[in-house]
């Protein structure tokens, strides 16, 4: 018998219509359909959702924690990217 572990999947749940799917956790499954079943049986037992997404964890392309400074820090001092940076001239309506 094979002792190989089933691949890991990430589970996303939409709790009700109109909201976006949110990451709920992960699970092991041998294939996509099994992952969907397992997500239903593991994460929606108490009516947590109306829609499920599952995706193999190794298919997710993630940012590297070691690259955090290059990825995210440059945004910190670019205050002009925020609308609050701009003065609104008097007399501008409907903004």
């Amino acid at each position, binding site marked *: 018998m094979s002792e190989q572990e*089933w691949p890991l999947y990430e589970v996303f749940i939409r709790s009700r219509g109109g909201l976006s799917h949110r990451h709920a956790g992960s*699970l*092991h*499954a*041998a*294939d996509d*359909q*099994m992952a969907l*079943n*397992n997500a*239903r*049986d*593991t994460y929606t*037992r108490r009516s947590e959702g109306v829609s499920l997404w599952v995706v193999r964890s190794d298919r997710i392309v993630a940012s590297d924690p070691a690259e955090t400074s290059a990825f995210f820090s440059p945004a910190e001092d670019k205050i002009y990217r925020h609308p609050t940076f701009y003065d609104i001239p008097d007399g501008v309506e409907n903004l």
Partner: protein
Amino acid sequence: MTPEQALRAYVLRLGDNALILGQRMLELVAAYPELEEELANANFALDYIGQARMFYSYACECEGAGRSEDDLAFFRPEHEFRNLLLVEQPNGHFGDTIVRQVLFDVYYLSLLEALMRCSDARLAEIAARAEKEVRYHLRHAAQWLVRLGDGTDESHQKAQQSLDDLWRYTGEMFEVDALDEAMMTSFDGPDLNAIGVEWQKKLSGIVAEATLTLPQEKSMARGGKQGIHSEHFGYLLAELQILPRTYPGATW
């Protein structure tokens, strides 16, 4: 037998099928090698126990003799249980468990769908609740059968063996007895002949997808519906009933 008596006995029999299958599945709690399948099995088992409770409490109301669902589950002897032989068969290996589930659920789903259209409102309501659960159980079990049948040589061979072994317990499902007839004439109940045709068709599809072969064996075991059970049944019932019989009235 009045139509009311027939209805009560019929509902009781539905409860017996659900209870005994649920009990069999509960024997597997904490035995699954994967956490997710463990949860699925326990969920499904409790779905059947929940269905048994709905059927039993309705049967008690029809009877009007003050018996409770617990009395029906825990204080009836073996021959008063009228569940199918199929649902009392031991869990065996995983292939046996899955094949038992597919064989029963294909039948049970069609039966519940027919009961949703019967003229007894309460029974139709219970059937509608159970139908949603069973539709999912079947999806789960059928996918597993395809994985096993269309998997490795070993899993294919084992799944085929399970199908061959359990086949002889399927004939009883479609055997029309006095209760089935009474349900059909008085309450617009399920037509087991039509359900048998549907069962053969749906099952053939699943079995073909699983690259397995439908057994051709015609000789069938019978007796469950008459209360004559296989030798495994006494052990199952003993485990199910020992606690309330040893400590009557025990509560949590």
